[in-house]
């Protein structure tokens, strides 16, 4: 269970601190999905980064199964991230020096949770099986995004955080990839918190929330 309480975050600028999150409260039960929407600069990506332990909040707390995340050291947060979080970025952020097979299993093996059968299944479902020896730059945009999804799910993380996962794809490809993504998240038994601009895609998830000027608007978006 992910619980966010009164979360504040600002960034220093030449004109003084720029508040991005201004008291966010949120709960995400296990095996559920949530779409986070909002205009550019509303703080969606920052919230994702805070949940992943990539950044420290100014105030408030993020609790994972009741345990505060940000009181942990960087090493502990990194360990937690590799064992419990699957990250999918709009720009894929694949490891260009490793081939598709190594990229796919990278995080799972890093977390000692590599399940060969599950990885093979993911590769087949994501249509990556014939491409395992290729390097990321030899893949199309859609293939790269599928690979990023596969890598995030290979360790069967408790929580998948996706930042505009289909933002670089055309509408048809987006539909197909998202469908596959949601199916696999469900099969992995993970929760999903996905940032998206698309209302249409957001409707496919269990819940939708709107972030506006650093605050979550009440009710379902």
């Amino acid at each position, binding site marked *: 269970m992910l619980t966010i309480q009164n979360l504040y975050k600002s*960034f220093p600028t030449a004109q003084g601190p720029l508040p991005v999150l201004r008291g966010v409260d949120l709960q995400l039960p296990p095996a559920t999905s949530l779409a986070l929407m909002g205009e550019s600069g509303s703080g969606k*990506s920052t919230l994702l*980064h805070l949940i*992943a332990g*990539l*950044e*420290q909040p100014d105030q408030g707390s993020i609790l994972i199964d009741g345990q505060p995340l940000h009181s942990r050291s*960087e*090493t502990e947060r*990194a*360990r*937690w*991230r*590799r*064992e419990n*979080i699957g*990250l999918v*970025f*709009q*720009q894929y*952020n*694949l*490891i*260009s*020096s*490793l081939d598709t097979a*190594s990229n796919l*299993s*990278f*995080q799972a*093996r*890093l*977390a000692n949770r590599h399940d060969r059968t599950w990885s093979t299944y993911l590769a087949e479902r994501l249509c990556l099986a014939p491409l395992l020896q290729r*390097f990321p*730059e030899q893949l199309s945009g859609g293939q790269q995004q599928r690979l990023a999804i596969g*890598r995030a799910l290979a360790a069967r993380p408790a929580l998948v955080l996706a*930042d*505009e996962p289909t*933002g670089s794809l055309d509408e048809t490809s987006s539909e197909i990839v998202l469908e596959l993504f949601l199916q696999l998240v469900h099969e992995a038994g993970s929760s999903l918190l996905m940032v998206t601009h698309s209302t249409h895609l957001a409707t496919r998830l269990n819940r939708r929330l709107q972030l506006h000027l650093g605050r979550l608007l009440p009710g379902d978006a």
Partner: protein
Amino acid sequence: MLRLCLSALLSHWRRHPLQGISILTGLWLATALWTGVQALNDQARADYARANALLAGAAQTQLVARQGERFAQSAYVQLRRAGWPVSPVLEGRLRFAGREPVSVRLLGIEPLSLPADSSVAGQSTQGFDLLHFLTPPGQAWVAPDTLQRLGLKPGDQPTSADGQRLPPLAVQAQLAPGVMIVDIGQAQRLLQAPEQLSRLLLPNDFARTLPALPDNLRTQLQLQPAADNDDLQHLTESFHLNLSALGLLAFLVGLFIVHAAIGLALEQRRGLLRTLRACGVSLRALIGALALELGLFALIAGLAGVLSGYLLASLLLGDVAASLRGLYGAQVAGHLSLSPQWWLAGLGISLLGAALAGLNSLLRSAQLPLLALAQAQAWRQAQALWLRRQSALAIVLLLIAAACWRWGDSLPSAFALLASLLPAAALVLPALLDAALALLSRLCSTPLSQWFIADSRQQLPALALALMALLLALAASVGVGSMTEGFRQTFLGWLDQRLSAELYITPRDTRQGLAMRRWLDEQPGVEAVLPQWRLELRLQGLPVQLQGMLDHDSYRQHWPLLEQQPDAWASLASGKGLMLSEQLARRLKLHLGERLALPTTPPSPALPVVALYADYGNPRGQLLLNDELLRRLWPGATLSSLNVRLPAEHVPALKAQLQSRYRLDSTRLVDQGTLKRWSVEVFERTFAATAALNSLTLSVAGVALFISLLTLGQSRLGQLAPLWALGVTRRQLAWLSLGQTLMLAGLTVLLAMPLGILLAWCLVAVVNVQAFGWRLPLHVFPMQLAHLALLGLFTSLLAAAWPLWQLARRQPADLLRQFADER
């Protein structure tokens, strides 16, 4: 358009100042090291030219003694009376005692008889101040540098070590360093050579008529053409070539930095170039602007480089001058006076370096499809092509090196061997590293170790040039270090054997030497007096020292022979054989058992070569004969020194007696310990400049690696950020990056070791043989190798420290920026 285009291009450096600094630093260092070395060479060569041109003009041809170094003045008188327009010269060394004894080359001339169009010390004879030069007390002309070395001032009348008072000193700015010119009468007094002359100058037009010498002089004198006179230039050529080779290596290493930085700038500016082209800038204007930009860098760095080169040369000149004095007796001024051409050449070399380093990028700018999107992988693909081309070029260079080794028989071919071998090794390095990493990747099973190797391979193209620089610098250090250390051991062992006498005496002349010998024979405690008879002559156009040896057990026990026939010493003693120094045997292309005819009058039978011996440090060839045979064939041979064997405890007393009895100063009476110390000092100073240049080259390689890592660090965040997001800590990333740098540097260091040993072999077995005439055994010193390997790794560690520290201190925001949508 060009101005707009240039301002757009220059805006890149505001955003990437580090790359700009890299280019400037590379060109600055390359220019500084190259011009510094050239300044040393130019200064030395200018001084040799001044020394050779002491008596320049028409009077270049000369008459010299057939036997010995001097002849009677009566020959001059006879020739003048017969209408020969000859002018007499007496030459010798004049010693000055002191804490550091100094000797100068004293030249006595007769200005009235010098041909009208000749010049002395750069001054036409027409402009001589004859009144002061010829009338008592006369004048002694010296260069400002010599005056400074003697610690004297104009007008001083110093006393020589032999107790002779000199005429007042007068400065002649054009005079070569280490030379003093006096009237011939003064010279005969100062050198204690009354009625003696060294040579007679002849106007060339008169010499061309080939007049016949009077019969009685034909056996005494011989004509020596002017061309035979530039021995110093020839002897020192190899020394300067060595310096030039080191300078060139440093220059190339510096250019590696520039090449790497320009290449990266091109990749990063591909978008800008595309935009400029899209906005209507022609390809010609774009290339023109890029070339102009490069020229601007070259001018700024060139100015700084030339100034630094001057400073570097000033710092090294002392050691180089001492080396040249110790090795060849060549006098080089202790300060630099360089021509405007040198300064212009320095700027030229910077422009040439920039052109060489940037040509590839300019061509790629002109040829690559600029409208294609810039991708990291596009660069890697281009590099893969270059890797293949580099390997092919390396193979061609290796074939050239092999051909030079197999068929080369000269100093240029020896250097061509090095000039092919080193770049070949550098060019093949990236391919070897890539293969080694590919091999290592098979051993990796964990994801991080797989990434570690795969990412290292990806970094390779960007780091290749810096690693090549490290390879070359380290191999040069290993090669030159092994050669120097091997030479040191061989030389010291040889010195220990060769310097067996307890006391070495240099008499003023043969008469004094003979008197000393008689006196020494009567002294209690003296076990043996070994006279050294010497004669300088030319064999097949080469200057050669003939040395007469007494048959004595001391030589049989202590004179190390490299090759010998049975009973070699007995053959020498009986006058039925001769021994050659290794370098002379090589120059004359003579082997053991072959015969050599000596230029005697009347001709004498050729003698077999019964042994070859090492004669390290002597630039001239040497030939040993039985002393009685030498004196019989050349009665004019001089008794150059006496080596005295006696128990060590008797040395101080005998030394004191000799000093008081014969008024010998410390330069003429030297004990074994002092002589060894001097020899070792000369040896150490000889390699001081080499060692300094080597260290500088290694430092430049370190700078190359540092700049490459720093530049690479900027573009590597995109590779490291995903790992961080996947749960690898920043500290781990920093350690992994350090490991990658050390692994690549370590593999380079590993490859540099055998390359360095191969280089050492080339130096001792090929270059030294061609340059100096002696071949040294190849020594490998494991501790030295370990030391240099650690130094190489330490240099890499230092180069990696700052970029890694920056990486470890990266704010999460910097890494998060890699995930931002707007990229």
